């Protein structure tokens, strides 16, 4: 099926920027979840009440975006543009995962497949 289910993990403070970039490329349907994550972005030591801890679970935002194949490229690029802290990009800026999507149903109308996205 010519559809993909894109999952992106980004920094919370980049959400607005990513939303704007996505709107630019006319991807204006998505689902947002508050998550926390860890990955390469580590070593951030915190002192809490006299003890040092490695804080590894950081707040992140997860975006779920179902797209038709022809929108995949623009979507990924838009997310990248919006999610980067700066031009170079910083560790912790996040990841994008692309999963195959077999079918979509729009509940209100019962539409099925690409048109329902």
């Amino acid at each position, binding site marked *: 099926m010519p559809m993909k289910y894109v999952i992106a993990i980004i920094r919370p403070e980049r959400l607005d920027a990513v939303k704007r970039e996505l709107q630019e490329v006319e991807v204006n349907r998505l689902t947002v979840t508050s998550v926390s994550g860890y990955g390469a972005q580590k070593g951030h030591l915190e002192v*809490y009440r006299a*003890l040092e801890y490695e*804080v590894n679970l950081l707040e992140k935002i997860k975006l779920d975006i179902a797209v038709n194949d022809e929108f995949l490229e623009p979507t990924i690029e838009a997310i990248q543009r919006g999610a980067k802290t700066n031009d170079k990009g910083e560790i912790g800026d996040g990841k994008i995962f692309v999963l195959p999507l077999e079918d979509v149903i729009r509940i209100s109308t019962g539409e099925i497949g690409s048109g329902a996205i």
Partner: protein
Amino acid sequence: MSIVAADTAWVLISSALVLFMLPGLALFYGGMVRRKNVLSSMMHSFVAMGIIAVEWVIIGYSLAFGTGNWFIGGFEHVFLRGIDLYSTSGTIPTYAFIVFQGMFAIITPALISGAIVGRIKFKSYIAFVALWGLIVYAPVCHWVWGGGFLTGEALDFAGGTVVHITSGISALALLVFLGKRKGYGLDAIKPHNVTFTLLGVGLLWFGWFGFNAGSALAADEVAGLAFITTFIAPAAAGLSWMAAEWTHSGKPTALGFATGILAGLVAITPGAGFVTPMAALLIGLIAGIVCYWAVMLKGKLGYDDSLDVFGVHGAGGITGALLTGVFASVGATGLLLGNSHQLLLQLEGVVITIIYASVCTILIGFVLDRTMGLKVTESEENIGLDKTCHGETAYNI
């Protein structure tokens, strides 16, 4: 002697203010624990209101303020026998005096609970509080305020020794049996809601005006003095804690500022009506720094006084008791006015209380540990005490 209406009004409202410190404490502590233990932690404060209020009118008051001997009061006022509507204590009805003192008896064991959150059995906590109120609080209260051997010797305006040293030391002693929380030192066990903690310290400060200025037991000049010192010291301690934290660890946390305020409140308690406002300023500044480092010490020593009861109440109470001996100048004289003897008396009070409170707490802890058991199972600790002890969760959809 007949009562003075203004003094009665003042002590009654002060009593209400002190009771209000319990929800304040529940918030202060509850905000600092993890979500899964918040109700358990708040219940430690709330259930103390139930247990001790009842115990106090049945027997605690009599043990603390009955005539008795140098060590403890008697049984003459058990079930408030011998007291009626027209009984007076100084210029206020005895009923008002009983209730005011009862509030102190409640908050003291509740303070201890901060050290042992997330791992004590609820049933055993109840037993502990009840026993501790009789075995530790009542005698020490009798010594210092009820006609016992420290009355008129060690200065303790509103409970630096009776309330804060006893609870701060007992918190440490109880750790002998309760040890560390699972994961302590591995994962950051962070406050689940710092706004509660801030609000809690707001309630505590508000209530503390009743605690300290109410201890004048009259709406007089001394109440005014105790009020203004209770205004200045926590402000100063909040700032000095913040300064210490800012320079030492790089950021001024809200949690730190709140804890600093509390440290100042604790430290001014014994001297509130004995020192000048400027001495209160110094006491506050010192207490903020002393308690900051007392809390930092924990990291080095490796015990899990979870919400820093010793670091704040123990260290703050000792600092305050000694500094009262240094700065006392109103209705008493301290070191700075040449009376070094007072500082010795203060030290004596501190040391005796530390020994007595720690020994008794260890005994109580030992007995309870052997009989009911003090600590929950590892799996209960993992799941959290809200669910396992109380069968509920604080937050639902």
